[in-house]
């Protein structure tokens, strides 16, 4: 029974990692952009929700609803002004720029919000749980996982069922030819990053309600997110969900054996998958 419980908790934890990863997967899939600031952007979004909540007295869910459009605009702007100018075959320029953004965000947040731990208060929801026969699961992890599935589902619908998604895929295949179709790659990329920031808001909401956060925790979240994306395979959104689940289960199983091995076990699972499948589980046929 203990193992079943461990695996269920791991799956649910994977939902959180999939949420961290969804925006990254979108951006990485569409423009091959390695955004090293993604983790710090999640933390930044959490602080923004916190500020909204403190200023308005709303609950965090509504706070996130207000923060989302602001973050969309922020992502759009960063992509337009900075990232579009460094995209190309060479991965180094975007790597460096997002490294710079990451350092700037971390330290900017440190100055503005201090190093103190913060939390988004969700009231009784935080400790509520349901009894599912053999296992008992917290409402909050369940909600996180459901949100991850919904986010991935919604992104998939956009990707495969809408004109915007078609433009995403076409631009990702070949931006020059896409521009011959009347698509402006720069603005398509900006919308993609804006959209990614909306998923980042949702990730931040659950990050902040489930645990404490402070300006320094971004990079660790970034690694989990990247592991989920890479395990799943470039451009496969459901793969990202599976990747998150694999990391989550590996972590809880590792922690069950020795509490200090939690993070280590997640990384080892990632390396093991990559050793067998260097391009992840569901790589796109064309690349």
């Amino acid at each position, binding site marked *: 029974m203990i193992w079943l419980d461990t695996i269920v908790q791991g799956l649910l934890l994977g939902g959180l990692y999939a949420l961290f990863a969804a925006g990254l997967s979108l951006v*990485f899939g569409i423009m*091959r952009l*390695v955004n*090293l600031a993604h983790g710090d952007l999640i933390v930044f979004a959490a602080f923004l929700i916190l500020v909204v909540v403190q200023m308005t007295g709303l609950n965090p869910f509504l706070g996130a609803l207000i923060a989302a459009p602001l973050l969309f605009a922020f992502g759009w702007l960063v992509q337009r002004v*900075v990232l579009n*100018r*460094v995209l190309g075959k060479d*991965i*180094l*320029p975007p*790597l*460096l*720029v997002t*490294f*710079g*953004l*990451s*350092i*700037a*965000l*971390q*330290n*900017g947040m*440190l*100055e503005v919000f201090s190093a103190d731990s913060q939390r988004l208060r969700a009231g009784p929801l935080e400790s509520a749980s349901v009894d599912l026969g053999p296992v008992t699961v917290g409402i909050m992890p369940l909600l996180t996982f459901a949100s991850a599935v919904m986010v991935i589902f919604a992104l998939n619908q956009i990707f495969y069922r809408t004109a915007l998604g078609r433009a995403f895929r076409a631009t990702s295949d070949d931006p020059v030819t896409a521009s011959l179709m009347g698509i402006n790659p720069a603005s398509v990329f900006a919308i993609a990053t804006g959209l990614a920031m909306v998923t980042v808001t949702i990730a931040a909401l659950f990050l902040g309600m489930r645990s404490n956060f402070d300006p320094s925790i971004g*990079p660790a979240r970034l*690694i989990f997110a*990247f*592991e989920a994306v*890479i395990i799943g395979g470039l451009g496969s959104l459901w793969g990202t969900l599976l990747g998150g689940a694999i990391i989550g289960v590996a972590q809880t199983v590792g922690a069950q054996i020795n509490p*200090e091995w939690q*993070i*280590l076990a997640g*990384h*080892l699972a*990632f*390396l093991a998958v*990559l*050793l067998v499948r*260097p*391009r992840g589980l569901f790589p796109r046929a064309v690349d």
Partner: protein
Amino acid sequence: MQISVTTRTRASTIAGIAALALIGLGLILPAFASRSVIQDLFFILTLLTLAQLWNLIAGYGGMVSIGQQAFVGIGAYAMFAGVILWGWDPIAAIPLGLGAALVLAVPMAFFAFRLQGAYFAIGTWVIAEVTRLLVAQWKTLGGGTGTSLPREATADIWGVKAIAALLGLRDAAARDVLAYWLALAMAVGTMAAIYILLRSRNGLALAAVRDNDNAARSVGVDAARLKWAVFLSAAAMTGMVGALIFLQTARISPDAAFSVTTWTAYVIFIVVIGGIGRLEGPIIGVLVFWGLQTAFADYGSWYLFSLGLIAIAVMLFAPRGLWGLFTDRTGIALFPVQRRLTTTSQGDSRNG
């Protein structure tokens, strides 16, 4: 008309002489410089060496690793292990850093070379994290909180007594001088080795590998072997520098020794701000980095905040770095590695 191939320019001849003079000056500097100057120079020289090594693998070899902190950390911990567990003299334990980094680099390369581009970058980072987490389990070396070099070990490091007597310094200052001299030797040795490599046939081959693996293979360059050789030697040297850095601080913890920000992000900033893919770049970069740090360190996080923005600005407006800007304007190269054709004849009117 005679055509010959040369890499020498007048600027490079002058630079060569100046470099020798600078090294000489560097050697005798502790005789008259203050302790804080020596400490600053130690900082500059070690960062410079790390930056040159990263520049070698990423700028010349095209292997964009963000996991170099693994080698700094493992090298430092190996040195601590030698001192604390086996009672070695710290100086004798420095080569342990080289050995440990090499041992780590083999599986890392085996794994990461199967990955491309962004996957390579992230893969190296994850391996560095795994190493950090494993080392944090090493309870005899302080586990997650770290440990210090025991006082008995630092009290009589080889050579310190002699330096103290020679320069009339107290032991602590003499330790700094020793560390400084070692840092100078590592920096000079690393740069000389890279310079010689780049000017050799393998240097050309390395450029070919960076630009296109397949093309390089088709002209007979054993790309895989060259990449292995470069990656392993950079890793080994990085490990040794790591050991030296933590010899000087005498205190270690997994978070400090395996810090991605300090040993990789800042190192990358240095390379890129100065100019990637050229030997002069990291030199300029480390001077700028040190200058900014000295001038603005009092502003704490705002300083690092600005550093991040500066890195972004350089990438946007001077993607080839400050040195790139300078050579574009002037055409001067201090350490030229491009081969240029020179014609040594007058009055030949025909086009060759």
